[in-house]
């Protein structure tokens, strides 16, 4: 009995803490991809609480009813082998729940792996995000600029991040905009992100990659397309060009803060995609299809 009350008290405590806090980042989405995952998470929390509550109630009732101190000292518990109807039920219910969640998982995974609905027709803004210990380099091939540890994106436009690494495996994550994906040295990953609200969002590498991992963060600023364009223009007027020599310097392990350049490192150090990928993963058409990515 004590047990049950301890749990109840604890769960209430947790709920209280939850209610008292700011909305949690993952459950406070600012774009369609993160919204899909937030909805899936809420749906799974509700489904799963149903199971947890059912088990808790059954356990509490059984412990209350069949505890030895409450029973006749002469009571001899019966020998029960099992019952095919009861066992049928305890197999069927989990199967139904899992089948339901399998459908949810398959649909939502396809959703977040493709450009969000309503944005799939437009040409995406392409930004290469590459990691080095312990920095993020953002290259804009069309705008011909490069930033370090911060990225500006236009709102309400599909941004295609192309992820890779100059060394260790890292994981590119902007909790309020989209779930994460790995950046690795020998292949390029693709991720579609749309921000529907202007604002500044936290982004980070979530995959442990050594001593400077904790500070391996960046900021994402989403701003209306017109402001985005003038930001690009500003950079062309003020920033220095990125030279190969300078870029090699940036790759040295350490932390750099935020930096801005014109030009991108892709010109002298291309991303590992297409013919530059050391593993063509069994033919390029195949790998692209598997990546859920459609080239134009």
């Amino acid at each position, binding site marked *: 009995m004590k047990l049950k009350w301890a749990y109840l008290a604890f769960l209430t405590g947790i709920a209280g803490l939850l209610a008292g806090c700011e909305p949690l980042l993952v459950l406070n989405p600012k774009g369609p991809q993160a919204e899909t995952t937030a909805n899936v998470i809420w749906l799974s929390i509700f489904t799963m609480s149903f199971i947890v509550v059912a088990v808790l109630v059954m356990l509490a009732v059984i412990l209350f009813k069949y505890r030895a101190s409450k029973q006749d000292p002469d009571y001899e518990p019966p020998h029960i082998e099992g019952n095919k109807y009861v066992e049928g039920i305890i197999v069927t219910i989990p199967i139904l729940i899992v089948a339901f969640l399998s459908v949810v998982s398959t649909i939502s995974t396809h959703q977040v792996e493709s450009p969000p609905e309503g944005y799939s027709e437009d040409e995406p803004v392409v930004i290469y995000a590459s990691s080095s210990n312990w920095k993020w380099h953002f290259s804009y091939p069309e705008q011909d600029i490069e930033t370090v540890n911060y990225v500006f994106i236009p709102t309400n436009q599909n941004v295609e991040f192309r992820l890779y690494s100059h060394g260790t495996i890292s994981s590119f994550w902007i909790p309020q905009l989209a779930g*994460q994906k790995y950046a690795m040295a020998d292949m390029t990953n693709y991720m579609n992100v749309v921000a529907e609200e202007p604002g500044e969002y936290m982004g980070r590498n979530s995959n442990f990659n050594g001593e400077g991992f904790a500070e391996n963060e960046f900021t994402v600023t989403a701003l209306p397309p017109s402001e985005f364009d003038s930001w690009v223009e500003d950079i062309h007027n003020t920033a220095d060009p990125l030279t190969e020599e300078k870029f090699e310097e940036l790759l040295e392990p350490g932390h750099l803060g935020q930096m801005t350049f014109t030009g991108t490192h892709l010109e002298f150090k291309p991303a590992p995609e297409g013919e530059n990928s050391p593993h063509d993963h069994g033919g390029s058409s195949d790998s692209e299809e598997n990546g859920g990515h459609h080239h134009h």
Partner: protein
Amino acid sequence: MDFFDRFTIPPHDDPMLYASIVAIGLVSIAIVFGVTYFKKWGYLWSEWLTTVDHKRIGIMYIISALLMLFRGGADAVMMRLQTAVPDNSFLDAQHYNEVFTTHGVVMIFFMAMAFIIGMMNFVVPLQIGARDVAFPRLNALSFWLYFAGAMLFNLSFVIGGSPDAGWTNYYPLAGTDFSEHVGVNYYNWALQISGIGTLMTGINFIATIMKMRAPGMTLMKMPMFTWSALITNLIIVFAFPVLTIALLMGTLDRQFFTNFFTTGDGGMDMMWANLFWIWGHPEVYILILPAFGIYSQIIATFSQRNLYGYKSMVASMVIISLLSFMVWVHHFFTMGQGAVANSIFSITTMAIAVPTGIKIFNWLLTMWKGKIRFTTPMMYSVAFIPLFTIGGVTGVMLAIASADYQYHNTMFLVAHFHNVIIPGVVFAMIAGLIYYWPKMFGFLLNERIGKWAFWNIVIGFCLSFFPMYITGLNGQARRMYTYSEASGFGPLSMVSFFGALLLAVGFALIVYNVYYSFRYAPRNVGDDPWNARSLEWATHNPVPEYNFAITPNVNSSEAFWDYKKNGHDLFKGGIKDIHMPNNSGWSIILAGIFFVFAFCFVFHVWVGVIIAFVGIISCLLYRSFEKDDGHHIHKEEIEETEKKFGGAE
């Protein structure tokens, strides 16, 4: 001296580290001095270090597991202390990285594995009415290889530096480009030699269970723990060779300049992740199935009822073992293999919830119409059911690939796997230890202290890990040595730290309980202190060397219950001479040479490697030509022993 430079640890400005080195040195000296002073070397050598008795090997595994639990637990408390407040500087980043890597490796390989293998060693031969395992000498070698691996790993702390790439040891981070010092070499070799020991255990126990069951015990009449042990060992035999080869490839990369997992020259870093988890996910079930077995025994005993749905319990474990090899990709949904592959692995992963759910309901139905006694082992089992359910359903949440893109690498994941491993494996092992304590030592552990420990551990567990679900959803990545105040992770991390302290108090109480009960507990507990049901309780407490004076005759999975309640004739015929295996120092010597071999390999001391290799081959040759027919315990001696326990059956 260039040669000796390699043995120094990488510079740390950390007084804690030097304090620990001094502490380790002092404890070692104290142990050697103590054993010498009390003139116990002879006893230790002839009764323990050379033993081939499965019960003693089991006890040695469990003692080692407990030592490792405290080592890994100290790491855990240090981590929670470092992250209790924002921008803390108790540990620096490098030290924190070594601490969490060590915590993971020690807890999985040297604590949990040793605990379940120790439990199987002690219980399985008794449950099937055997005198020992199929290959007793090999069994001793398994233990000593495990022990050599564990000691080698712990040595990294003071000589050369600990591994720092996480217990998952992902390349290229673990490669020489990013982790230059010998830490990862230690990882490779410590896991390699203890892994070989585990593989031999797998073979040994499959042979034991398939060939040495008492007359009448068909497969479907085996007690549930033995079933879980059989399936676990089958998984071991299929999964561990993958780890062996992956570690070898890692060693070749680091020490012989090959390019299996490097990022250039045709290497593929994610190959390691795949191989690691092809072993690693079955490993999860290697740990949890024996725990399920223990719970099945305990819940049936203290509900005073037979286990509900025996057949579906067995079937669900078989299904789990098959599915366990089909889900490894869920450890890196974020690798970019696309929606189709992720959906498939998402579904196979969720499918495991079905057989697991069946087991939960079967345990509930075992208690239904029972007569439940709340002893300490039962309290752990009762707490296990809801806590493990929470761990299980969060596992289903993680299995939804799209949502996993948000949970992956976060504290949510850390909360989940501790939520299955602690109430699942750790509670089961503590419960099992308390339950089988009288079988091991002939007295009961104190229930009052035991219950205090229980409440500390359960509440400490909840306080430690439930907050992590929340900070994970709030964007806290795992393995960060610190975080800013603005992140808002501070208050809940502080709660976690308090939880860790309660857990530490709980475990300390368990140790105190052992001391207290050893001094004060009554010794006349009899052979059946729990009113138990399965065959292992049909012999004496503590169990005599030969296990059963007369080989039992079994007619059900609850042979002892049938004997007590239904007048089943368990022991037919009279006492005869019993054939037993001889003790041997061969296993510990061979494992010692393996230790030297691996240590020299870690540091590229090739002369030592070659000499040790010759030593290993010599030991194997010696064993091949050795003649050892074992010995007999004579009838009179057995009768004498049985009389001391209050008469033969």
